[in-house]
């Protein structure tokens, strides 16, 4: 269940911040039933219980795809020049320390596609290659 923030707290467009809605309401009932019959493991720290995460099962059909996490948004009607985006996800504008805006999001979608679609093992290299080129241009 998506109640946690990503560990490094970067609110970029990445696989962690794109969610699939629950269309199949049976998932919720199954979740509750499983919790009732086999409660999640828990520990108590400073008098407060901390529960192990219980995952949902597979749905009969996928719900809508939604984009979440607005902890890093900036307004788009004036160009930004500050450093943004983590490491290999940085768009060329940020790498080259020039003005950036809406297109930075589209670049980020491309980087996200690398993480979900390029075969494992080639992903990091693909993104690193792009940034080696950009660093070369930057000089």
């Amino acid at each position, binding site marked *: 269940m998506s*109640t946690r923030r990503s560990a490094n707290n*970067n609110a970029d467009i990445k696989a962690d911040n794109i969610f699939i809605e*629950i269309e199949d309401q049976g998932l919720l009932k199954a979740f509750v039933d499983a919790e009732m019959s086999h409660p999640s493991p828990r520990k108590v720290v400073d008098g407060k219980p901390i529960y192990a995460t219980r995952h949902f099962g597979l749905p009969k059909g996928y719900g*809508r795809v939604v984009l979440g996490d607005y902890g890093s948004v900036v307004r788009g009607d004036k160009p930004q020049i*500050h*450093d943004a985006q983590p490491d290999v996800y940085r768009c060329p504008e940020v790498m080259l320390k020039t003005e950036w805006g809406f297109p930075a999001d589209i670049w980020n979608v491309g980087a996200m596609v690398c993480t979900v679609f390029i075969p494992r093992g080639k992903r990091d290299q693909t993104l690193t290659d792009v940034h080696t080129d950009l660093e070369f241009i930057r000089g």
Partner: protein
Amino acid sequence: MDEDEHSMYNILSKGNASHPGYHHVRTALDLFTIPRQVGDHRCLVQKPMWDSFRDLLNRNPAHRFTDELLRAGLSQVFLALDYLHTEANIVHTGTAYATHVHPQIC
């Protein structure tokens, strides 16, 4: 959650619901604040979601999306971005490394 993110959800929830991207942006069902001596604690109530794309990736033994899944996913992500860009006038990919920026929402 900081004050800026809190106000962002307020704006997104009240945006133009007829835009095709509106339903692809995660909104808040409720926002409330618990006052505390050490600083107010802002709380966000949202619909529970199924998996994130990351979770979905990890469920797949090949650890990658199929063409079909990527195509369906991307078209909806782009709708969400169009909503953020044209209706809310914000860039999502923001300030991960910035320490001095305070987004103003118009």
